[in-house]
């Protein structure tokens, strides 16, 4: 394989990984605050459909991106109100957010089926893009890719280098102590959940404006769930999410290439690979208990009702 072919393949890997990376980073912040939101898939598909729709109506893919982010954040609110203000079970509420999101997106999206999409074009960074071997891979990508890299470092910096990040971790590790210190636990969690929604919305916009610039029902195809698995895989460390997302991107793309090459394995088995890989990775991570336990937010999934 020539270097150019390898670079072309790596570009597709990165494109497949970007929505996973963004959604997982958002969920990582949510889980660091002690909330488990299983609604990623639902918020992501809302981002995909609203982003596609806004781009259709305005003709501007950027409007699509913006609308997707806002709608993702807004769509996380019912989850936030129920789990935070009404202390409902987070697992069940997150599931219902996913079911609702898939339903609402299917309904909104009916009018978009079959329409040609508006593509968010790649931005080549002048000069740098001409570097051989890595130029196009790193500097000739779609804008959401650049954003995802900034986001990864931004989330890392926020969590480990800022006071607000320390507050976030405190809330996630021991909401009782954080409350006793005068931190408004619920406010921190509301903000974290909405940030997660915004990220999932952006990830959805990447799907419907960059990855497959079209609206297809259920187009997220489990990516929201894979993003959830990535957070566990990364043991709640942002930079490890980057590695995990690109590994999953590679599995997805390897499976496409194998199908295109006519490998003598039924295409359905190849399509199942990313899902099976998710399970294998989860098993490997969970069997190493020391590594997972160290970073797991101790209050994860537990409702907090302040005593008054």
């Amino acid at each position, binding site marked *: 394989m020539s270097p150019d072919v390898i670079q072309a393949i790596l570009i597709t890997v990165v494109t497949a990984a970007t929505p996973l990376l963004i959604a997982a980073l958002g969920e990582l912040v949510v889980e660091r605050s002690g909330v488990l939101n299983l609604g990623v898939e639902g918020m992501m598909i809302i981002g995909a459909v609203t982003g596609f729709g806004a781009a259709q109506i305005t003709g501007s893919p950027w409007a699509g991106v913006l609308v997707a982010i806002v709608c993702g954040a807004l769509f996380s609110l019912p989850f936030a109100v129920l789990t935070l203000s009404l*202390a409902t079970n987070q697992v069940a509420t997150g599931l219902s*957010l996913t079911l609702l999101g898939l339903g609402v997106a299917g309904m909104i999206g009916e009018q978009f089926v079959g329409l040609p999409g508006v593509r968010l074009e790649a931005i080549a960074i002048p000069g740098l893009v001409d570097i051989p071997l890595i130029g196009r891979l790193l500097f000739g990508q779609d804008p959401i890719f650049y954003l995802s890299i900034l986001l990864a470092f931004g989330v890392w910096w926020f969590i480990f280098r800022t006071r607000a990040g320390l507050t976030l971790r405190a809330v996630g590790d021991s909401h009782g102590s954080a409350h006793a210190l005068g931190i408004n636990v619920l406010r921190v969690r509301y903000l974290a959940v909405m940030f997660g929604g915004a990220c999932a919305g952006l990830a959805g916009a990447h799907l419907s404006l960059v990855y497959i610039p079209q609206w297809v029902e259920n187009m997220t*195809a489990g990516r929201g769930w894979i993003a959830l698995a990535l957070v566990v895989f990364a043991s709640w460390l942002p930079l490890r999410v980057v590695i995990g997302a690109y590994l999953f991107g590679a599995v997805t793309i390897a499976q496409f290439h194998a199908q295109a090459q006519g490998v003598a394995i039924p295409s359905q088995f190849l399509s199942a690979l990313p*899902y099976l890989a998710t399970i294998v990775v989860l098993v490997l991570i969970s*069997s190493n208990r020391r590594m997972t336990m160290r970073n797991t937010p101790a209050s994860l999934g537990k409702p907090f009702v302040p005593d008054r």
Partner: protein
Amino acid sequence: MTRIELVRRPQHSALFSVLSPFIAVLITALIGGIMFAMLGKSPIGGLYAYFIEPLTEVWSIHELIIKATPLILIAVGLSVCFLSNNWNIGAEGQFIMGAIAGSVMPVLYPGITGPMVLPLMLVMGMAGGAAWATIPAFLKARFGTNEILSSLMLVYVAELFLDWLVRGPWRNPEGFNFPETRSFHADAILPEMLSASGRAHYGFVFAILAALIVWFMLSRTLKGYEIRVLGESPRAGRFAGFSAKRMVFFAFIVSGALAGLAGIIEVSGAIGQLRPAISPGYGFTAIIVAFLGRLNPLGIVAAGLILALSYLGGEAAQISLGVSDKVANVFQGVLLFSVLACDTLIRYRIRIVRPQPAATPEPAR
């Protein structure tokens, strides 16, 4: 800022334990009415088309029972899982694997006929669903792998496996290349109950039986007590000598077997062959059924009928109002949200707190 405050009740409210599902249905109807108004339809007409019209004709009640059957079977199994704090959300996959395993006889051995075929199919369906559910159970018990994610991932794998079977090795040799298996022979079809008036089959009887048996187990046996104790406090369960690991297997196998049974009943009773898509998401809708029924098998029977109604209403509203049948999925999502929100009333009193003018400092507590 005005905010919501929760005040813990000393005891669970018996009143709201009964009322909460009804309040939830009311809230959903209200939101549904608003949604119809936003779509430019009459709210009353919309709700009528959804929830009343399907009940006005006999054939349609048969369809209601057909759709309620898988929902009840799956949700009854899920109640065992959820009560014991095992989050099996891969019932859709267990449904599909049950349908596949149960179809082995009529698809691969169509020459074998007789009265024993159907019972064998049902048993194989249960075994198929249970086997598929054992995977996340084993991974959770052995490695501590998150069962939510592993059971869900297996749904996609099961869907792809079914797709491969009906397009590849199990495709009907005389089927003009359609992606479907041969039609089941007469001995492999679950008979209809009252074939004069509609196509409802005996699957519903299995659903009611399953609900009764699991209800008895949960409320009248030591096993039921064990399920609740381990679900509420694994630590207390350990002191009582219960094994959380064994419970993981028990819960997943029971719910997998019931989902598998639902799968083969659906294929043998309602469809008559395997196709690439055999479920409109029954495995996920059943999660809503389980919660609306408050994880009580008898409540689940009622909840299953209500959710089945939403599927039928979706079809009816599409025909009579021209509203997308996708509205049904939105209804189902809103319903689960309302159910969960109303369940809060059982454990907490809700107080709306208005901003206070600068108060005198509170005495130290």
